[in-house]
């Protein structure tokens, strides 16, 4: 599988990273080099293997349903680029 500049731009848009046409062009050989290399995985016969789920055998612990958090609005908003009236502010969204 190899990518072209249009694909790079599409993937960047999916990842919400603005890139220029020049950047996209520049990244094409770089990404194809990496993608070409990782494609050797296709050689491996994985028919007898399940995808790994837990690297070290361990069970998912469930916590009790008690309120132990919240009520920390100042902390939640402390680093916000824009906060007003207890809310985060973002450019107006039209739905």
């Amino acid at each position, binding site marked *: *599988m190899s*990518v072209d500049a249009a*694909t*790079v731009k599409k*993937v*960047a*848009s*999916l*990842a*919400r*990273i*603005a*890139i220029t046409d020049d950047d996209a062009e520049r*990244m094409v050989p*770089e*990404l194809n*080099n*990496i*993608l070409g*290399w*990782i*494609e*050797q*995985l*296709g*050689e*491996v016969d*994985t028919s007898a*293997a*399940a*995808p*790994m789920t*837990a*690297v*070290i055998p*361990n069970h*998912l*612990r469930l*916590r009790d349903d008690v309120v132990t958090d919240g009520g*920390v609005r100042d*902390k*939640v908003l*402390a*680093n*916000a*680029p*824009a906060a007003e009236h207890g809310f*985060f502010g*973002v*450019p*107006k*969204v039209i739905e």
Partner: protein
Amino acid sequence: MADVTDLGVREIRDGVRDGSFSAIEVAEAFTARVAAAKQLNAFIVETPDHALAAAREADRAKAAGEELKPLAGVPIGMKDLFCTKGVQTTAASHMLEGFVPEYESTVSQKLWDAGAGMLGKLNLDQFAMGSSNETSYFGNVLSPWRRNDGGNAPLAPGGSSGGSSSAIAARLCPAATGTDTGGSIRQPAAFTGISGIKPTYGRCSRWGVVAFASSLDQAGPMARDVTDCAIMLEAMAGFDAKDATSLKLDVPHWEKGLNPSLAGKRIGIPREYRVDGMPEEIEALWAQGIEWAKDAGAEIVEVSLPHTKYALPAYYIIAPAEASSNLARYDGVRYGLRDLPEGANLQAMYAATRAAGFGDEVKRRILIGTYVLSAGFYDAYFTQASKVRTLIARDFENAWENCDLLLTPTAPSSAFALGEKSADPLAMYLNDVFTVPSSLAGLPAMSVPGGLDKAGLPLGLQIIGKPLDEQGVLNAGLALEQRAGFVARADQWW
């Protein structure tokens, strides 16, 4: 009195305890050394007040006749991937420049609870993505080491924990935290002639550590020797209910359990780690390591890890895939950088913010990760890589039937010069060829210095253990350390 900055964790701890020197003397000596080492660029933020306050507390406790905490009087460096309450935490990115967490990571909290003080936040590869510390927004970290060719080529301290390795090697701190996703503790340790251990996945809590690739990320200590690593790891490890992948196990007394005899141990030599083009000196060091292990009483067995070759490509699918999702939260809404071009809507703000906030390597990995997860490619890339990961783990399980530990070189070369590999991402990735397989399998692994190459640069040996056998790994590390007698240190030029 000797310069206390030449001392390690154990010596400082014991010296404060027995009154050979005060904790404040130690903290002052190290803060001064940190302040005088700006050329190395190992620290993003210096926090002398934190170190001095911890030292004063240690001295107060000592004067009051209280029992001293395990790390009382020991100042350390904190990789700037650990969130520290009230102290800027950046992951070496522009994205988080100025971000001051309202919380303390579990691991750093455990260290403060153990009495340690913080000298500062250590530089790293941006979001821990890199093997040379050239991707930091806050500039390259320089290794204190230089080649003995008379040139002054600045060398890479390894990565991503390059600030940690450089600072320890330069005696700016006796120990530091690191994190290891595919070798980020072990490779920089090897490059700078120090020790570092990545414990079993789940030993150290990931809570409060800026995530790179969640299924791989593990914190661990870096220090000048194996004993100091054992002491530090004891303080850092332990169950944390706030991390669903944390292992609910008691923390062993690794320091007490240290034993350099390898009698009765079988040490496996994986044949697939003999890669083409590996420098002869690395081959020679490996052979030397085998001899040392034998000398310590180990039986040497050849083993096979047939899928080794596929570990790196699998890693470069899984880690970027997880990273592409983990880094989605950096969107300019709740914290960190916001780039809001005139008239931009929400989605345009995201794109502008992320374009401005992430460096090239981070973007590259996010794009790869996004691509391999996207519709139509998921099975071919991500599912296949996850299956290969299972096979790699199975290789190790099979090996454990014939041996207790594995011995390999840590990295395929000694430290390279800054800029030497940064133009070719793939060449940079290949640096982790020996460290990545054990990361994919979640195994404990450590690097200890073995000797110097012809250029006078350190080389490391890696020991890989069974799940939860940090003790076995540390013991083998100690056996090698004692036989290597590594005392070389970088001349101070900064």
